[in-house]
């Protein structure tokens, strides 16, 4: 059976099997990927990352529900309605439905086909894994416009699996126009998602650390949208303030404040007049994923970020960066493989023994192997 044709025809079982072949790196999978590649590049890839227990899976569940049903997808009709009424300042057509629709994704009110790739860690000792993200996504069951796939990291340390990019490509080719990629519970440096996604959402929750955590390098730097989830818990103001303080250092904007009873004005970073249009300042949003509070605003922020990328050329730039990362990785693997295949039998092992006995250093070992291979020709 031809995998790629089944995927393009929308056959879900073939899609699932293709994803396995691609994840396992089989020849069948590689062939399918190559055949499907020309059909990719259409989906909006949205990464969702953050520490364990911040509510990433629940947030992904609510977001997908909202995209599938922009009007009543969120399980909190009263609040959603009041937010959307406030925001719809344009000439209302009178009908309450049109006011509510104003809060839907700005791409239009068409329900979008959503794929979810949820990554959980593989045990470094046994190679096994518990993939538990579906537990929070039961609301999406029975909707044929949603496809959820769990992945184990299989030894990869950057927060996603090394095959995640390829799995996402297959889902893109299958016609899912929004792909939510949930990383493993990521602490500080699992930033690979930023190289894969167009839009990266970093999820925080109250009570996870002080403002020093917020100025450390790493995960906060990759955020296009910052979410403080569990915003119904105490401490949400402190978390938000720490994040805002950290963001202000990265994107100094003019602001005024009272200091010892005196009004201080800080002019912010000198900017050219059009710079404010090219710089994206990550919004900080509060959500409660359990009941859906704040989800419409989060969807708006995701749509705004996409519009920003498209207006500033950032979309192409990220596409290019992503493809380059993929090319470099594949090239490196392939070159190492073919280089080792060309080495005379035992050369690699001999150099390894020399190193172990401290006769040569690791960099001398590389010199020796590379020079040796060159002399052979």
């Amino acid at each position, binding site marked *: 059976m031809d995998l790629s044709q089944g995927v393009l025809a929308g056959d879900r079982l073939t899609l*699932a099997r293709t994803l396995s072949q691609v994840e396992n790196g089989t020849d069948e999978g590689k062939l399918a990927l190559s055949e499907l590649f020309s059909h990719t590049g259409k989906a909006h890839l949205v990464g969702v990352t953050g520490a364990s227990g911040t509510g990433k899976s629940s947030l992904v569940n609510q977001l997908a529900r909202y995209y599938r049903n922009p009007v009543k997808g969120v399980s909190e009709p009263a609040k959603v309605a009041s937010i959307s009424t406030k925001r719809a300042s344009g000439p209302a057509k009178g009908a309450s439905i049109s006011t509510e629709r104003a809060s839907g994704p700005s791409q239009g009110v068409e329900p979008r086909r959503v794929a979810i790739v949820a990554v959980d860690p*593989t*045990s470094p000792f046994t*190679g096994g894994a518990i*993939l538990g993200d579906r*537990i929070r996504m039961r609301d999406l*069951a*029975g909707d044929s416009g949603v*496809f959820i796939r769990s992945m*184990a990291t299989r030894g990869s340390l950057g927060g996603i699996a090394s095959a995640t990019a390829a799995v996402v490509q297959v889902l893109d080719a299958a016609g899912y126009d929004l792909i939510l990629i949930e990383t493993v519970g990521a602490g500080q440096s699992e930033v690979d998602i930023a190289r894969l996604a167009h839009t990266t959402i970093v999820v925080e929750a109250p009570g996870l650390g002080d403002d020093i955590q917020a100025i450390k390098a790493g995960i906060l730097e990759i955020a296009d949208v910052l979410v403080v989830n569990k915003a119904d818990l105490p401490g949400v103001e402190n978390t938000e303030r720490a994040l805002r303080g950290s963001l202000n250092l990265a994107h100094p904007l003019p602001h005024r404040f009272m200091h010892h009873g005196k009004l201080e004005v800080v002019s912010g970073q000198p900017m050219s007049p059009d710079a404010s249009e090219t710089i994206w300042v990550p919004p900080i949003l509060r959500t409660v994923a359990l009941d859906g509070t704040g989800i419409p605003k989060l969807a708006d922020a995701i749509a705004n970020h996409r519009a920003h990328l498209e207006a500033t050329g950032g979309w192409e730039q990220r596409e290019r960066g992503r493809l380059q990362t993929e090319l470099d990785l594949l090239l490196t693997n392939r070159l190492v493989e073919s280089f080792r295949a060309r080495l005379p039998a035992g050369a690699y092992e001999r150099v390894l023994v020399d190193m172990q006995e401290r006769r040569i250093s690791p960099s001398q070992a590389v010199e020796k192997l590379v020079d040796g291979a060159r002399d052979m020709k």
Partner: protein
Amino acid sequence: MSDRKIRVLIAKPGLDGHDRGAKVVARALRDAGMEVIYTGLRQTPEMIAEAALQEDVDAVGLSILSGAHMALVPRVLELLKANGQDRVRVFLGGIVPDEDVPLLLKMGVIGIYGPGTLSDTYVNDIRKTVMAAQP
């Protein structure tokens, strides 16, 4: 044994809330090097079949302590078949009366593992039948 990863879905259909057994089995399969997709409580047969399809699993483990196994298990088997997933192996844990065991095995369940089963028993059974069905 090849180094192909065995993927197993662990689900609790029906209305009882006793999920300790399902979690212990999930953990044991993880420690045996399998990838376990855990779906949690109160799944319908339709939800289980859909998850098994999307995740392209090799086996499905059902934990039932409510006594509804003679209604739920055939339904899950039927839906898996309807989805073209005949090769997915189904095993059962929980409380199953002895007289139902032969009936369930006849339906195609590969094993029924009640309280006190050693984890090696079902780990080996799953590995053997999955590898036999699709190496």
